[in-house]
C-alpha cells in the first residue's frame, strides 16, 4: 500500500478529473444532437428531411446494436429481428386496440424482450460462431413466420400501420418524426453512456477482452451478456416501432432482413464499436451513402455490391473503426507520454526522498500500470 501522504493528492487529482469528465459525454451528446436538430431547417426539400429520418433511424439502430456488440464483442447479424418485431408489434397494437402510439411502442418493446430472452439464452450458451448462427437463424425464421402467417401480418401483401398524426401534411410528418427519432437517439446514447460508466459496463468489457479470465474471476458472464442482449434488443425494437409508424407500410422481406442487420453492424464497425459516437458516425456516412445509391441506382443490385465491398474493406483494414484510427493518429502526433524507462535517476532519487521505503515498491507498480 502506498502511504497516505502519497495517495491522497493523486486521488484528489483523479476525483477532480473524473468530475469534469463525467459530464463530458453528456455535453458531447447535447452538442451533437443540437447540430443534427438543425437539419430540418436547412434541408432544401422534404425529401432531404425524410432521408434525415432514415439516417437517424440507422443511428438509433446502430447505437442500440452497439450496447451488445460494442461492450461484449459479440457480433449479432440478427438485430433486424428485433427491429421487425418492434415495427409489427406496434402496428398490430395500434390497429387492434387503437391505443396511443407511444404506449404501443413500449408494449411492443416489452414483447420483443420477452421473445429475445429464450433466444439470448440459447445463443449465449455457446461462444462466437453459434451465437452468430442463431442470430441469423432468428431473422430467417421470423421472416418465414411473418410471411406465412398472413391472417395476422398480411403476409407478403404488406401491412399498413395507421399514421399517428393523421391530419399532418407529409413534410410536417417527416419533421415530427425527425425530432422523435432525435429524442430516441438521445435516450439510447444516454443509456449507452450510463452502461459504459457502470459496473455492468466494466464487467461486459471484461467479457469482450477475455471471457475466460472474466469467468474465472467469478464474473457471471452469461447473465451479463444476456442483460446487454436484452437492453440492446429493447432499443432496437423501439427504433423499429418508430420506423413502422413513420413509414407506415411493412413487408416481412424488408423488416426481417439480414442485409439490414449487417448494414447496421457495418455502421457501428466503421465508426468504432468502442465509442459512443462510433455508430452515429457510421450511420451518418453509410446511411447517407445508401440513400444516394437507392436514389441513383435503385433498380440495380449495385447497393449490395457497394455494401459488400465496404464491409470487406472495413473488416480487413479498419476493424477497430475510424475513431480508433483517429485516436491512434493523434497519440502518434502528440508528444509521447513518459514511460517508466524514461524516468531519470534524479527523478527516482527525489521520489525516494519523498516517500518511505515501504511505499517505494508499490509506487513503482502503480507507475508501470499507468504507462502506456
Amino acid at each position, binding site marked *: 500500500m502506498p502511504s497516505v501522504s502519497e495517495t491522497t493528492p493523486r486521488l484528489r487529482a483523479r476525483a477532480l478529473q473524473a468530475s469534469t469528465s463525467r459530464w463530458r459525454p453528456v455535453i458531447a451528446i447535447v452538442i451533437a444532437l443540437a447540430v443534427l436538430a438543425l437539419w430540418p431547417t436547412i434541408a432544401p426539400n422534404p425529401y432531404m428531411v425524410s432521408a434525415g429520418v432514415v439516417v437517424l433511424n440507422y443511428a438509433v439502430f446502430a447505437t442500440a446494436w452497439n450496447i451488445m456488440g460494442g461492450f461484449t*464483442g*459479440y*457480433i449479432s*447479424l440478427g438485430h433486424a429481428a428485433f427491429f421487425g418485431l418492434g415495427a409489427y408489434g406496434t402496428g398490430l397494437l395500434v390497429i387492434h386496440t387503437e391505443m396511443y402510439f407511444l404506449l404501443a411502442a413500449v408494449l411492443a418493446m416489452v414483447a420483443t424482450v420477452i421473445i429475445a430472452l*429464450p*433466444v439470448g*439464452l*440459447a*445463443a449465449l*450458451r*455457446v*461462444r*462466437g*460462431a*453459434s451465437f*452468430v*448462427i*442463431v442470430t*441469423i*437463424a432468428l431473422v*430467417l*425464421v421470423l421472416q*418465414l*413466420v411473418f*410471411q*406465412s402467417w398472413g391472417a395476422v401480418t398480411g403476409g407478403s401483401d404488406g401491412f399498413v400501420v395507421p399514421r399517428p398524426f393523421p391530419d399532418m401534411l407529409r413534410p410536417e410528418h417527416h419533421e415530427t418524426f425527425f425530432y422523435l427519432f432525435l429524442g430516441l437517439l438521445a435516450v439510447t446514447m444516454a443509456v449507452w453512456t450510463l452502461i459504459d460508466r457502470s459496473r455492468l459496463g466494466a464487467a461486459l468489457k471484461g467479457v469482450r477482452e477475455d471471457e475466460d479470465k472474466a469467468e474465472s474471476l467469478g464474473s457471471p458472464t452469461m447473465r451479463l451478456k444476456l442483460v446487454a442482449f436484452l437492453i440492446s434488443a429493447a432499443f432496437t425494437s423501439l427504433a423499429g416501432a418508430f420506423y413502422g409508424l413513420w413509414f407506415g407500410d411493412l413487408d416481412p422481406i424488408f423488416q426481417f432482413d*439480414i*442485409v439490414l442487420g*449487417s448494414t447496421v*453492424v*457495418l455502421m457501428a*464497425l466503421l465508426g468504432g464499436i468502442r465509442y459512443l459516437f462510433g455508430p452515429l458516425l457510421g450511420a451518418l456516412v453509410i446511411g447517407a451513402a445508401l440513400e444516394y445509391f437507392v436514389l441513383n441506382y435503385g433498380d*440495380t*443490385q*449495385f*447497393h*449490395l*455490391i*457497394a*455494401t*459488400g*465491398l465496404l*464491409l*470487406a474493406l472495413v*473488416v*480487413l483494414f479498419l*476493424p477497430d473503426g475510424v475513431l480508433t484510427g483517429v485516436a491512434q493518429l493523434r497519440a502518434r502526433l502528440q508528444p509521447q507520454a513518459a514511460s517508466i524507462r524514461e524516468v531519470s535517476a534524479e527523478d527516482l532519487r527525489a521520489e525516494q526522498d519523498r516517500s518511505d521505503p515501504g511505499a517505494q515498491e508499490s509506487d513503482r507498480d502503480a507507475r508501470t500500470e499507468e504507462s502506456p
Partner: protein
Amino acid sequence: MVTGTLLFQSLILGLLLGGLYALLAAGLTLYFGIMRVVMLAHASFIILAGYIAWRFNVVTGLDPMFSLIISVPLFFLIGFAIQRWLISRLKPATMTMMSVLITFAIALIIEGLLGMVYTGTQRRINLPYAASNFNFFGAAIPVVQIVSFVLAGLSLGALYLLLKKSRFGRALRATIQHREAAQLLGIDTDKVAGFGFGLGLATAAVGGTALALQATIYPSLHWHWIGPLMAIIVVGGLGSVPGAAIAALLLGVLRIMLEIPLGPTWAQTIFYVALFATLMVRPQGFFGGRLAQRF
C-alpha cells in the same frame, strides 16, 4: 388423405434432398474445422455454381453436369485464395466474428453481381430428362432428384476417401485436430488450410450444379439455404463431417415429411426448431464427437 405410398415417397424424396444437404454442409464443417470460420458465402457460391451450370447449358447445349469441369477447379482456386488472402489476415482474437462479416461481404458481392449481370429473373435449365419419373416400389421419384443425389453421393464418397486415405487428407485432419502439433510434424498447415478451404468450396460447385438440375435459381436464393445449412452444422456438432451428414439426412427427411401436413413454408421452420432445441439441450451438437474424434 395420407397414404402409405405418399409417406414412402416423401421418405425417399427426403433422403435424396438430405444427400444434397449433407454434401453442402460437409463444406461448411470443413471451413469451421480448419479455421473456426462460419462461412456465410457458401450458399451464395452454391447459387453461383448453379448459374455457371445454367449458362454453360445455354451456351454449349451440353448437359449442365459437364460445367463441373470448369466450376470445380475454379471454386477450388477461389477457396484457396479466400483462405490465404482474406481469412488468414484477420487477427486471431476476433477471427470467428470478423470472418463471419467478411464471408458475409463476399455473399453480398456475389448476389449483387449475379443480380446485375443476369437480373433477378428466375432461371431454369431445360433438361431432356426433366419431366421423367422413376418408379420405385410404387413411389414416383423424379429422375433429376436421383441424378443430383448420385452426384452428391459420389462427391461425398470422394471427399471421404480423400480425407481418410490420402496423405493430404491425413495432413488436413491433423491440422484440424491440433494445428501446432501438425506444424511440429512438418506439415505446412497454412497451405493445407488453403487446400482445405478450396476443397470445401469445390463441394459448393458440385452442390450448386446438382441444385440447378432440379430447382429454379435466382440471385437471392442463397438466403433460403444459409439457414438450413447453418442449422445442420450446429445440430451435427460444429466441425464434424459425419455429424453433419447424419443431421442433414434426418432434417431432410423430416422437412419433406412435414410438408404433407404443414405445407412447404412451415415445414422449413423445422431447421430452426432443431437449431434452437440443440443449443438448449446439447450445445455441442447431437452427433459430433469430441474434438479428437472428428471425421
